[in-house]
């Protein structure tokens, strides 16, 4: 708790307590806590002197600002046309099978959330996967599984 209060304090220190600072602050919270919890949004609203509804409304516009609990690691696979043509569906299947979750879901241990996204800007090297900020172009199903297992060996046995 003390830690999180510090977090907000730091973020406000850095980005200011005006509306301009809202998105960087929200990003900062998501980076540390994976998502924007209700109390956190309320605190931010207070600090910026805006309503919590505005914080929520703004956050819900952006795909990187989650208002629902997310896993520690967010896996994104591009679903747009070039990657589709390059076989993104196979990657999705492999990930779903490895983590035993469907697109849009979070593993029970809250370690991974798996989502599909629009074009990630690597169309010449599709299919592409991004885990947190790390990019994996020209990914194969095997390689995807390997990466996941490296991150969380628990999934090794299950595959």
């Amino acid at each position, binding site marked *: 708790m003390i830690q999180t209060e510090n977090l907000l304090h730091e973020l406000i220190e850095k980005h200011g307590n005006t509306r301009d600072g809202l*998105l960087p602050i929200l990003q900062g919270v998501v980076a540390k806590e994976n998502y924007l919890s209700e109390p956190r949004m309320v605190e931010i609203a207070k600090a910026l002197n805006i309503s919590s509804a505005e914080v929520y409304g*703004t956050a819900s*516009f952006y795909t990187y600002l989650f208002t629902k609990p997310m896993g520690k690691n967010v896996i994104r696979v591009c679903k747009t046309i*070039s990657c589709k043509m390059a076989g993104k569906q196979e990657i999705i299947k492999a990930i779903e099978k490895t983590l035993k979750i469907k697109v849009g879901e979070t593993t029970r241990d809250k370690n991974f959330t798996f989502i599909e*996204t629009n074009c990630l*800007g690597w169309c*010449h090297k599709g299919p592409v996967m991004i885990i947190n900020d790390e990019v994996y172009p020209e990914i194969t199903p095997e390689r995807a599984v390997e990466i996941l297992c490296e991150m969380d060996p628990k999934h090794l046995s299950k595959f």
Partner: protein
Amino acid sequence: MKTSELKKVDIIFDCVQCAPIEVVKKSLAMHPDEIIEQIISSGLRGRGGAGFPTGLKWKLAKEEVSDQKYVICNADEGEPGTFKDREILDLVPNKVLAGMAICAYVIGATEGFIYLRNEYNFLLKKLIPTLENFNKNLQEIGLDFTIKLFSGSGAYICGEESALFESMEGKRGEPRNKPPYPTRNGYKGKPTVINNVETLVYCNMIMRIGVEPFKQLGTKDSRGSKVFSVSGDTTKAGIYELELGIGVDEFVNEFGNGDTKAVQIGGASGFCVPRKDFANKIIGFEGVPTGGSMMIFNSSRSMYNILKDYLEFFVEESCGQCTPCRVGTQQLLKGIEAVKHGEMPSSYLNQLMKLSETMKVASKCGLGQSVPNAFSSIVKNFKEEMIY
């Protein structure tokens, strides 16, 4: 097809010994009006998609009287099939920064931002030190201008300039009413020049190599070269700097693998050119304009699936505020599905074509206005694929 007529150009990534900061220094010795003059005479038009003449944009911003002005580099690159801005920022970031600095000098801005899409955060590792260094260099050469980074939060529409400002101001990325335009009323209501990453590099390069070498390339309305992002059914997917005004056939000869059925030029918001039109269309503002996205489709591809993919993209990425776009995109998507599944007669496509016309003329911003580009060019040229 080994020998090609296609002229590849090397301006953007060219690494001749001349540090970008030197170009800024050189520019500082010139009068701002002189720089504007040069950019205008180069014929450079924005590379972000809309193609507004860059020199004129700078001129308008310079003429505004204001205590504060801004220069913003639009690196929100989210158009499906575009990835050149990422490559530019990765390989030659200093050239982008130099372009911004020159612009700042011209219009009298002291603060600048790079609006970087969140998906490109991995670039930050290199970009932040580069930026710090560059800011220091600017101080050394005596230009009062600082560049900061602003990280996007995941929304294609934030590439639209006024939505981008809203987003930077901590709000939902909903495009504003225009006029007023950014050069008068941009970020925080102040005069702002917003340029695409690539545009800024060309500005820098024009100041370095002069107007002539640039002007010699391209056509009357599409001067110079441009960086293309090539993907899809090709063995040569990647980034290429090519002269503007080349024929689509020339392009296909170079990049297609012999079975190209259509090329989608300009991404989901661009146009689909079918094989029969390859020979009579050129790539550029007087033909098919593009922000750089070139997606190549072979005859095995279903154009229905491709169109559906684009529409799904827009249904999600529309900001949702205006009726023609929010509802129109959903109707187009639902409509082609219904026709495909036989739930609606094929004549319903005509109704949808009319709808796309409404979207084009009545939507609030460029997103809704350009959804019809892909829709009508695909439906018109591949009607059978939509029905059967």
